[in-house]
């Protein structure tokens, strides 16, 4: 049985973030005067990183001391959860977001949003005619509010 619990993971993440911040700030410029040394660009992030490191260590120790209170991580459970349809839907949403980020400038707002909406509605089991109808309704409302009223320019893509 795994001995790692959520407290260890949170603690390790804090220690990792704190350590990365401390490493990165070594390249920050130093001030010329003593007061500038103290209050240079690294001063505040370093202060936060040190506190975060301390809290991370506390979490790790707490995870060991009170290990009975926290459920242990199980790789098998995580793998089983991946096959659940609802979990797959979350991954489809994440994939749709990445698609949107990658193709918005190329395909433009209308095509990218239409694909985004149709894929998600298909995954959420909305019947096809409702899906098409709501997709165009959403696009129309967004176009009216963002482009027509607020004159915000949305990418038209390279095809148009």
């Amino acid at each position, binding site marked *: 049985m795994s001995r790692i619990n959520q407290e260890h993971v949170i603690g390790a993440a804090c220690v990792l*973030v704190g350590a990365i911040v401390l490493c990165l700030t070594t390249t920050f410029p130093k001030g010329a005067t003593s007061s500038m040394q103290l209050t240079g*660009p690294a001063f505040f992030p370093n202060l936060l990183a040190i506190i975060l490191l301390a*809290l991370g260590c506390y979490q790790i120790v707490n995870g060991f001391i009170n290990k009975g209170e926290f459920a242990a991580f199980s790789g098998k459970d995580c793998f089983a959860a991946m096959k659940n349809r609802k979990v797959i839907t979350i991954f489809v949403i994440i994939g749709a*977001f990445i698609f949107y*980020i990658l193709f918005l400038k190329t395909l433009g707002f209308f095509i990218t949003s239409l694909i985004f909406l149709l894929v998600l509605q298909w995954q*959420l089991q909305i019947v096809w005619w409702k899906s098409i109808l709501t997709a165009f309704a959403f696009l129309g409302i*967004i176009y009216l509010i963002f482009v027509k*009223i*607020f004159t915000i*320019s949305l990418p038209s893509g390279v095809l148009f």
Partner: protein
Amino acid sequence: MDAILLSVLDFNVLIPWLLAMVLGIFVGGIPGLTATMAVALIVPITYHMPPIAGLAMIIGVSFTSIFAGDIPATFLRVPGTPASGAAVLDGYKMSQKGQGSLAITLDLACSSIGGIVGMLILIFISPLLAIFALKFSHFEYFWLGVLGLSMSAIISKGSKVKGLISTLSGVLLSTIGIDIATGYPRFSFGNSELMSGIGFIPVMIGLFGISEVFRSILTADDMTVSTIGEKIVVSFSAVRKHISKHLRLVAQSSVIGNVIGALPGAGADIAAWVAYGVAKRTSKNPDDFGEGSIEGCIAPTSANNAALGGSWIPALVFGIPGDTITSIVLGAMLMYGLKPGPLIFEGERFLVNQIFAVGLLSQIFLLIVGYLGIRAYTLIFKFPKNIVYVGILLFSIVGSYAMRSSTFDIGVILFFGVLGFLMEKVKIPLPPMILGLILGPMIEENLRIGLIKTDGSFLPFVGRPISIFLVTVLVAMYFWEPITRLVRRILRSG
């Protein structure tokens, strides 16, 4: 008095004013569109209008959009505006318990009352408050930021260490981007978007909205049922008893909101969080906060609208903007040929009185326009969950993109959506991270500039009257409860 009322109720003023208030309802309810954007949109339209018509539109749109931000916050856990961040905590829980009607009506009524209190303070004691606000130097602003940040410990449920980790992570995130003091790009890795920093609107949409969509999809048994199960009925008579019971809290939150709003740089969002924290601290039932508490619903919504009145205090009295909205207002006033500052109270007394009248009447119109707005939004929320969730995702994407025409911000909402979901899984509270992100720049800037001014000495930070007062409040917040418990025990044993 009659002349002032007649002049502001003239059709040339009233019609654009009401139209702007309706626009505010739609702007506030859509994540990513802010009250500031609505005001910026309105100013060019008002160029050829009489000054009071333009100012009425600006005042009207700002009040309604701040309230409207509470509508998606209450029903979907997606704050429509930054000022509604604190409204998600108890409003959404109430809605989940089938008390959404009560929560949103309380929001509307308290927004209006908060707005009235804010305007009355503006009318009667604005010069005094403005002088107090101007006494704030870097030292006082630093303590104000720390005081605000300490609210995270109060608003967090469960482990205080996890609350602190969430807060510090938010503050650390706020250090990404160009360093204000030296111009050095921190943690940006040559990326121009990171150089501009992480905006708290995409972070807020991700942490609250997207993570909630993930959670709902995983837990919902049937995605084809309506998003809100209850019939939304806006009944002011139903909330009257709650408001009368918590009148002190409404007044307390409105005053806190107004005072914070009057401080340049501290807006309605900070006001709402601080009012929430103080309400929890002073409540007889602090454990109910975050679980659908009526007090937790009243405090932030009273404060954020009262803060708007507060932000007009330095703007009108000294010509110093209290927030981004009043900075646009000052530009608009100059465009109309008006010079904000002490002399405006002498030279343009009639216009100043008109502004006050518009501010007060806007609170009454808010009840009507807000009621219609709730009806309109609840029609949308009646749609099945799967359609509403897809809509939330697309509106969140486009709203985030629209902030600075950058796909980077879409990545930000996705990242924080996943992070927020995971954080809630391991019981790390989300609100402190937002609070840290909002207050981080204020704390860092004032701490560093203060230390530069004092050549590294921390003593002046605790040596000025207002600083001492703020530190005392800070200490009292943490030690009040144990001290009173100790005193009670001594008295009982004695």
